[in-house]
Structures are given as C-alpha cells and as structure tokens.
C-alpha cells in the first residue's frame, strides 16, 4: 500500500473554495445592477415637455451638474422619495425629471398636488429613452456633469443617506451642489 497521497485532500480544497464563495454571496443583493452607461454621454433624444410646449434634447441636460430623476405616478417608491427631491431642489440642486411611461394628466396633477422639484420634465411616454438610458424601472436617478455625461446611476429611492454616500463624493468640491456649477443655462 502506498503512502497517503496529498491528492486525497484535493476535494476538500475545492470545497473550501466553494464555501468561501458561498459565504461571500450571503447578504449580497444579486438584484443590484451596475450601469453600463457611466462615463458616457446621455444618449440623444428629442422629447416633449410635460408642462410646457418645449421640446427637449440631450443638449437640455448640458451646462451644469444636475440630476436626472426617472419617475412615474404608478411607482410607489417615487412617492416615497418625492419629499426628498423637493428638499434637494430647495437647497438649489438642479433636478430634471424624466416622466417614464405615465399618464400625462395624472403626472401633471401629481406635480401640482405634491410640488414640483424639477427644473424641467421630459416626457418619455413609450419608455424608449428609458431603454436608451438602461433604465429598468422607476425610480432611478442619474448624476450628469456639465458636459452631459453620466457620472452615476442610482436605482431605487433617493434619500439623505444615499445622497451623502453616493452622490456627494462625486461632486466637484468647489461647487457645493449641482446647479451651482460653472455653466449657466
């Protein structure tokens, strides 16, 4: 009989690796998705405004730091984050709204009743701009720099914690908040 060969421990080694992998997966949310568009310009579009007669294009999102918030009246989480959007807007943060696959009268009524945090509201009735942006549901919030490039995408509701942890570190330090950046509209 031969001496104990080290090969017999190979299955154990494989299993240990597997266990480490599984442990690392616990508590992680497999649903969270990165955005493939970070660092790229906002895709081109030409869409109507919810509240005025204007037509917006990707150029409407250039010239200053701003947020682009994807929302809809059918989305419960959007209701939850709405007060915080109003608070940010009151602090001078520029927020554009993207009204995503919504009923327009309901959307107007929603803003009239709850307050309007948006500098402009783009209507994406059939979700095609959403598709170009890689949106997979509402709410989502993009941080856009003055060159019109996407700096960050956040899926889910925007609140004080998310704002401090994810958005603030990416903002230029000399300009305290979006909307007060260099370019003027």
């Amino acid at each position, binding site marked *: 009989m031969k001496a104990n060969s080290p090969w017999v421990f190979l299955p154990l080694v494989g299993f240990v690796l597997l266990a480490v992998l599984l442990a690392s997966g616990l508590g992680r949310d497999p649903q969270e*998705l*990165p*955005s*493939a*568009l970070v660092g790229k310009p906002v895709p081109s579009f030409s869409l109507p405004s919810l509240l005025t007669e204007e037509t917006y294009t990707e150029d409407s999102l250039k010239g200053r730091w701003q947020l682009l918030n994807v929302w809809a009246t059918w989305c419960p989480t959007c209701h939850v984050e709405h007060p915080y959007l109003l608070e940010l807007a009151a602090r001078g943060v520029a927020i554009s709204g993207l009204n995503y*696959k919504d009923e327009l009268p309901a959307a107007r009524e929603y803003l009239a009743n709850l307050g309007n945090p948006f500098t402009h509201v783009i209507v994406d009735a*059939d*979700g*095609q701009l*959403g*598709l*170009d*942006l*890689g*949106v*997979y*549901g509402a709410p989502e919030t993009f941080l856009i720099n003055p060159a019109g490039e996407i700096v960050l995408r956040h899926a889910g509701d925007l609140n004080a914690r998310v704002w401090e942890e994810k958005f603030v570190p990416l903002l230029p330090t000399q300009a305290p908040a979006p909307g007060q950046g260099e370019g003027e509209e």
Partner: protein
Amino acid sequence: MLRIVLLLMLSMPAFAAIDVYQFDNEQQEQRFRILSEELRCPKCQNQSIADSDAGIAQDMRTRVHTMILEGKSDEDIVDYFVSRYGDFVSYRPPVNAGTSILWLGPILLLLGGAVLIVILLRNASRKAAADDEASQDKEPEEGTK
C-alpha cells in the same frame, strides 16, 4: 424543473408575455424568438424578455422587433442592449479574462480527469498483466482448482 420545487416563491414570476408582432418573413420571426430568449429582463428575477410580461421586457421586445425590421444584425441588437445594461442582459456570457474559469474550468476538469484515467489504466493494466502471470505460474501447482 424543479422549477422545482421551489415552491415558495414569494416573488411571483410574471407570466409569459404573448404579443403579436408582424414580421416580413419567417426567418425574422425565428431570429426574434431566439433573441428574446437570450436577452435577460433586467428588472425581473431570472427570466428572459420572452418569459416576462414586465414593462421593461415589453419595451425591450418592441425594440428588438424594430431593430430586426430595420435590418440590424443579431450582434448589433445584442450589443445595443449590452452597451446600456451591461453583460448582465445577455444570457450568452462574454469570453474574456474574467470569464476564463467559466469556460475553461469544465474543460480543464475533463482533460485533467482524462490524464488521470490514462495513468490509472496503465497501472491497472500492469497489475492485470501481473495477475495473469501469477495465476499462470500457479496454475500447474493448483491443479484441479
């Protein structure tokens, strides 16, 4: 299968969406079917856009349909989605350094196992030959056995 069992599905699968797109020919329809099986609905649990009736899946199918009618190739269409949603959106994983274990792992196991078997066969074959000789040597002595 098992679909197994799993019964507990708190998060309910959305049901297969059935929609009626018009195509110029059967080949396009076939491509549409395969593409919508191979694109993943980003919002859902593990479902292709063909399996899901979520709004986003519907939009994606519509886009696939439009792009097919526009004459885009399958690669164009998949690239379009991958550039927006990342590799995640395609059920055909990319082949690159990061995914090398995924593709090579089973192949290495197969090759390694094959090498092991060859070594084992040689040893076992030598033993079998030795057994034969031993039994032949013994046979005359063992007589009737």
